[in-house]
């Protein structure tokens, strides 16, 4: 399991290659990338900044990965989450799950993202033409997380 919080961008090609070569039993790799959009709640977003709770962030992500490994037959999980200032089209988060077969890898990847959205202590603040504002949590994310319980 690898959990990384970083300001710099990540290269999915490098990350996937590294994971793929670690274990010849890997037959499936499922991945998700979250990206900064230029629009939210009807307003143009010109910049976003992400704050987190160092320590608890890593701890909560590791707990989510442990939970995923207990629910599905998977081999490994990588979570990379960026913090700091990001522009539209930039990558925010990467989740990669490796396994022998795609079914469990897909499900575990979705689960990790749904739990990350509702449990990992990150907060987004966005810059719009009217000024900066904290992004509100969405009920749709709670609903997405609840379907796994």
């Amino acid at each position: 399991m690898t959990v990384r919080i970083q300001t710099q961008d990540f290269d999915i090609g490098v990350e996937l290659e590294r994971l793929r070569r670690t274990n010849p039993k890997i037959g499936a790799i499922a991945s998700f990338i979250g990206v900064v959009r230029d629009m939210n709640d009807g307003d143009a977003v010109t910049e976003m900044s992400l704050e987190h709770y160092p320590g608890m962030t890593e701890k909560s992500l590791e707990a989510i990965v442990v939970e995923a490994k207990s629910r599905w037959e998977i081999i490994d999980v990588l979570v990379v989450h960026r913090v700091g200032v990001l522009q539209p089209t930039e990558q925010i988060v990467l989740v990669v799950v490796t396994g022998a077969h795609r079914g469990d890898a897909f499900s575990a990847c979705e689960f990790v993202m749904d739990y990350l959205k509702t449990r990992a202590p990150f907060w987004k603040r966005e810059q719009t033409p009217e000024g900066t504002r904290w992004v509100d949590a969405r009920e749709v994310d709670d609903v997405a997380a609840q379907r796994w319980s």
Partner: protein
Amino acid sequence: MDQSELPQAAVSTTSVPVVTILYFARLREALGRESERLELPAGISSVDSLREHLRGRGGTWEAELAPAKPVRVAVNQDMAAPGLLLADGDEVAFFPPVTGG
């Protein structure tokens, strides 16, 4: 005066639980602070009673920590239920619902 007669000597022997409180995101900004150390007053022993105590500071504190506000609390970096009891040395964090990913 002999050192042993200083009143501080008596104070240092009493054991008042002290917690570190952290504030994040919208709350940190609204309350104008990111952390503080607080000696728990008598009777303040749970997460919920600490929140109530902080509300008692009035103004922004009362507004931001109002019961209707969706404030989350973590104790020692684990999400905490309102009834969780606090202990000396605990790290208590108050923050809005998370919005990562």
